[in-house]
């Protein structure tokens, strides 16, 4: 017992030493998604405030969450998606934002704030960085070759065996994201995608089962490259990732043309939120950083660069016109009505969801 205490003591002293070494410096440790900012936003922040930004990136909510739940991550600002953030708040990971330090908060868009509120008291703990939809990405040429009148605006592209089977030979990927792919199947059969009823959730299995054989892979990042290179022709994907593939294909000039659609049955609306962990070593700088991201010019620079919509209303006049008018980035008010948000499942329902998903992806 004593030994364990000593080890724990040494470990905590080391963490303390680590934290305090950084606490003395005028820095802010930011942990954000990869390819998600124009670096100019960071250098301008340092120039304006003298605070150095230590910028690290991750590529999945799960990795971020594992670090946060282990405790003592050392980060001041992190960017989880809303459904993950809701649970992490319950686990006691985050501190409430001190709104008195965020004088730019009036720039934020109430439409986004209202949707985010559907996940729980997220607006007390976070502000929006970017948001988007989970829809369908496809290779225009290859889809047209195989099915000239393909229902590209509909989830039938994925869930109708008569349609999806035609594209099996050119490669189909599906996101390996149970909490998004199961609601997607439910919205196709007209069930409430936001349901938390395990019996309804299990219905998704029967929707995926007949089309599983046509899917080459369930993966959440490989589809970007694969779509851009023409290795696959159809995927479910996150809006910005598909745009990235579109951009990469155009840059490579390889004859691949990519399109993204928000399916007419509705699509999941996701939000990546800036939040401050409870044990952030520089909470004050973290507030300054978050406040900086709410300056319309700054977030507009980022959005113009990464091509994701943001939750800052005042930044909209500063966006590139063809970005703001692109309905796949900023959906029209009518389409916005059809978008849904994913619910936060309790531990038991979460297990049902992931077990159902494992059954779908592995056939086991």
């Amino acid at each position: 017992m004593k030994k364990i205490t000593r080890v724990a003591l040494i470990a905590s002293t080391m963490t303390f030493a680590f934290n305090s070494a950084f606490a003395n410096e005028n820095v802010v440790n930011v942990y954000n998604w990869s390819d998600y900012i124009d670096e100019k936003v960071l250098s301008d922040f340092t120039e304006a405030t003298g605070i150095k930004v230590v910028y690290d990136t991750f590529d999945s909510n799960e990795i971020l969450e594992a670090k946060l739940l282990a405790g003592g991550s050392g980060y001041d600002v992190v960017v989880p998606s809303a459904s993950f953030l809701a649970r992490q708040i319950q686990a006691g990971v985050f501190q409430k934002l001190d709104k008195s330090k965020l004088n730019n908060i009036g720039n934020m868009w109430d439409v986004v704030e209202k949707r985010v509120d559907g996940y729980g008291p997220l607006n007390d703990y976070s502000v929006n960085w970017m948001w988007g939809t989970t829809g369908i990405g496809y290779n225009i040429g290859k889809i047209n070759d195989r099915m000239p009148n393909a229902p590209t605006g509909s989830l039938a592209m994925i869930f109708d065996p008569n349609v999806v089977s035609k594209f099996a030979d050119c490669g189909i990927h599906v996101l390996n994201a149970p909490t998004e792919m199961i609601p997607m199947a439910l919205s196709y059969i007209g069930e409430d995608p936001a349901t938390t009823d395990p019996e309804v959730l299990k219905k998704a299995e029967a929707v995926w089962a007949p089309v599983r054989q046509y899917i080459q892979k369930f993966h959440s990042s490989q589809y970007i490259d694969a779509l851009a290179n023409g290795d696959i022709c159809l995927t479910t994907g996150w809006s910005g990732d598909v745009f990235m593939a579109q951009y990469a294909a155009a840059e490579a000039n390889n004859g691949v043309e990519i399109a993204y659609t928000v399916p007419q049955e509705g699509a999941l609306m996701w939000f990546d939120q800036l939040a401050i962990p409870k044990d952030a070593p520089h909470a004050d700088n973290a507030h300054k950083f978050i406040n900086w991201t709410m300056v319309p010019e700054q977030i507009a620079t980022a959005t113009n660069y990464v091509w994701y919509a943001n939750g800052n209303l005042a930044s909209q006049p500063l966006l590139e016109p063809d970005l703001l008018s692109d309905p796949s980035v900023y959906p029209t008010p009518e389409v916005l009505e059809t978008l849904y948000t994913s619910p936060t499942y309790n531990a038991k329902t979460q297990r049902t969801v992931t077990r159902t998903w494992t059954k779908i992806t592995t056939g086991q």
Partner: protein
Amino acid sequence: MKNNMLSKYIFNGRNAVIAVPYLWLLILFLFPFLIVLKISFAEPIIAIPPFSSFFHWDGSFWPTIQASFYNYVFILEDSLYLNAYLSSLKIALISTLITLVIGYAIAYSITKAPTRWKGLLLLMVILPFWTSFLIRVYAWIGILKTEGLLNLMLLSLGITDQPLTIMNTNLAVYIGIVYSYLPFMILPIYANIEKMDGSLIEAAADLGCRPFKTFWKITIPLSIPGILAGCFLVFIPAVGEFVIPDLLGGTETLMIGKVLWIEFFSNRDWPLASAVAVILLAMLILPIMYYQKSQEKAIS
């Protein structure tokens, strides 16, 4: 007097040398393993850390222990886990056998090469390690995919008229594992054959044994320690492999490393993930103990 003996025991050079690997194992294997074992008896909760605590202090000197075998029962009841373990063992076993055949041929050829070439050939075996493992696996995507290098080559040579679907199948996983772990097979076998007593082979030849039979009757049996070492170095990490099946495998690929990932990251069920890891270790410990026994026999 007694004190003197104690210090003698501690500062005895032999013990000090033995203590180094044991200390290493204690700190980097046993201690982390006990933590994993402890977590495997906990229950998942929404907190930091996301599992219930093992020790409870309720004022008395000794803590009460709260342990549940629920996770182990759960794993036994759901066939997913058993199938994933079996599928991992199968993939690891087949990959090990393929690696052995290729690795043995390469190791044997290197020992037969002219001395001035040996250094260079060995360097070429080790050379891939200078590139990140992840990047080397990624490179295979570029080779194996439908419009990848391999298919372009086969199509342009007229060997096939349809691109082969290798990427995102188990075949791609086998290729990835065999490629990645080949050096671990070559090096111990090479070390073994290299120091083999050549006079035994000469004696066999003198007594009229044909080269092929000599190889089967003399070289192979004498190189069994090297073969075993190589096989374990390939088999054990291959069973728990995650990166290769994730990047190269498809919907048919089921491996325990991936299941563990799902439990840990998607379900946030650290206790169940720990139980999966403990069972995996228990499964691997049997062949490791067998190997240890056979090594001891070989030494004595």
